[in-house]
């Protein structure tokens, strides 16, 4: 359904002048002073404008792409895109050779320029990143793709700029899979939905006939594992996004839930509930072999692998209450790691390997937090009436989760929305969705 369309990269020249460049962003600290950047509309000649209208029904796709870039950079919290009204130089001239004094005058430290052509049903985009203070070019790239891919071009430019200026991979050319919610609390209709990271191109993958929960991407972001109540039998399913084919995972005589892929994509790890007891199992997707990982009369759920496949973090109430544990991936060496006040749930291992994000419930409040994998260094990022289920951006810098509001005694005032927050605890913002939403899962970087 969603086509991972090949993007043809033609790298003109890539100056790796990092050692000399004056601008650099430190993303390990809360950034209260975002970098002023000018995103000049990508220039498009009249011939391309006509083709653009024919192909896309958009008059100036160059401006539209620059708006995608501008919005991405803004929501990252690390950049402050300057108002286009203050720009003194025309897009085509700036792209050839910016007059650095003009851009310095409006306090820009970096500048993005570019050019777009649409010919023979192909969209060709080139862009340049300029260091205004040093007065020179930092990066130049060009790519060709199908015109309908224009938003992705904007996301890829954003990723390249982010990477060049922060030294870390971006997270803009990504998608979010989530559960779309509608209707009253007592009869909520839930559907699987997928959208671009910035809230555009929403598609619904199920019709809402049965309850669906907790979708999660595989490492290549082409498959999704989730819980469906199809025929009133709650089971873990596997969905191929492109073909739309679905299948039940394994043949369990009871509810399976809380699924996730292993980081190598070969296994699904999940809980299986039998006779009032939930334990953790894996199923190998190639040979279909099922393995039992935990065997304990308590509830063991919400398993998540470490990125090197060697460890599993999970949620258990074996101590009497919900706490977070880590074990080797064969189930040995189980260790409790959460010891703070309150209950802990939904542990999820960071793609960088060094942290575990979680939900904490303490004195009637819900927190999203992170701790090191041995449980030390607990840091709570956000407190609210209700929020849970963090999912990491592929670069491990941002968490997305869902938040619910309190209803009054008649059940009014309830909502469920997606939110994101930086690992630093700054830059908390709502992620736009067409409907109410929950259970978000962030894809990997698509153009890698």
């Amino acid at each position, binding site marked *: 359904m969603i086509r991972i369309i090949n993007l043809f990269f033609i790298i003109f020249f890539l100056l790796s002048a990092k050692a000399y460049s004056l601008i650099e962003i430190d993303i390990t600290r809360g950034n209260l002073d975002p970098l002023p950047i000018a995103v000049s509309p990508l220039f498009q000649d009249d011939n391309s404008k006509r083709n653009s209208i024919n192909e896309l029904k958009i008059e100036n796709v160059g401006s539209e792409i620059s708006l995608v870039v501008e919005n991405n950079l803004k929501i990252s919290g690390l950049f402050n895109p300057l108002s286009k009204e203050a720009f003194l130089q025309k897009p085509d001239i700036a792209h050839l050779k910016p007059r650095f004094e003009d851009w310095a005058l409006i306090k820009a430290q970096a500048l993005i320029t570019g050019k777009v052509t649409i010919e023979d049903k192909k969209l060709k985009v080139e862009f340049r990143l300029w260091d205004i203070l040093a007065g020179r070019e930092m990066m130049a790239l060009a790519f060709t793709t199908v015109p309908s891919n224009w938003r992705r071009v904007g996301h890829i430019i954003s990723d390249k700029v982010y990477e060049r200026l922060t030294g870390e991979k971006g997270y803009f050319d990504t998608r979010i899979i989530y559960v779309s919610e509608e209707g009253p609390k007592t009869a909520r209709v839930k559907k699987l939905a997928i959208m671009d990271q910035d809230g555009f191109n929403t598609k619904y993958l199920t019709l809402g006939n049965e309850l669906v929960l907790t979708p999660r991407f595989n490492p290549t972001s082409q498959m999704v594992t989730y819980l469906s109540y199809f025929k009133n039998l709650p089971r873990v399913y596997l969905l191929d996004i492109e073909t739309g084919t679905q299948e039940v995972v394994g043949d369990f005589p009871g509810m399976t839930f809380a699924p996730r892929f292993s980081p190598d994509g070969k296994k699904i790890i999940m*809980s299986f509930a039998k006779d*009032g007891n939930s334990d953790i199992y894996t199923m190998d997707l190639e040979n279909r072999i099922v393995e039992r990982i935990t065997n304990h009369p308590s*509830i063991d759920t919400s398993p998540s692998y470490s990125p090197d496949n060697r460890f599993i973090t999970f949620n258990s109430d074996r101590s009497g209450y919900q706490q977070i544990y880590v074990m080797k991936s064969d189930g040995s060496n189980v260790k409790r790691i959460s010891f703070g006040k309150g209950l802990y749930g939904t542990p999820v291992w960071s793609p960088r390997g060094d942290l575990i994000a979680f939900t904490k419930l303490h004195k009637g409040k819900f927190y999203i937090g992170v701790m090191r994998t041995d449980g030390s260094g607990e840091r709570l990022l956000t407190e609210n009436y209700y929020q849970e289920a963090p999912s990491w951006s592929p670069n491990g810098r941002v968490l997305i989760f869902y938040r619910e509001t309190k209803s009054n005694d008649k059940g009014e005032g309830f909502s469920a929305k997606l939110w994101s927050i930086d690992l630093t605890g700054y830059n908390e913002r709502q992620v736009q969705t067409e409907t109410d939403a929950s259970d978000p899962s962030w894809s990997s970087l698509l153009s890698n």
Partner: protein
Amino acid sequence: MNFSKSFRNTFLVILLSLIVSACATKKTTTKVEGQMQGDVYTGTDTVKYLADGVPDRVFFATNESILTTKSRDTLRKQANWLRENSSINVVVEGHADERGTREYNLALGERRANAAKDYLITYGISADRISVISYGKERPVDSGSNPLSWSKNRRSVTVKAN
């Protein structure tokens, strides 16, 4: 003269409404107290009946799956009814309130449904007549966000399957 009279009337109306609203507040508080013991729901608001005098559901304390004395009494009535109606099979649905993580609540709902199922089995009902399903926090009966609403939602419900 007229002015002072209407002023006095207004004053009386305000005073009266204050007394009435004070009564109303007091009434609801006692009502809430009468409907919960600890944080287990003991009222009958949401309860349906499988047959005359056979309630369909039992309620649980927060994070618990222990059956209260009242729950056991209800389940014995259900067991008697199932014994008298041997052709009927049931599904026990387990539910949790909205104040927990989704995945843990699915497991908790399953644990609650099985607590009820096990009790029915102890009272002589064959295990293959009872299936269980957990809805976690997905199907509340009361959509309020307050302790009384939550107590009504922490439940297991016995439903006819055929």
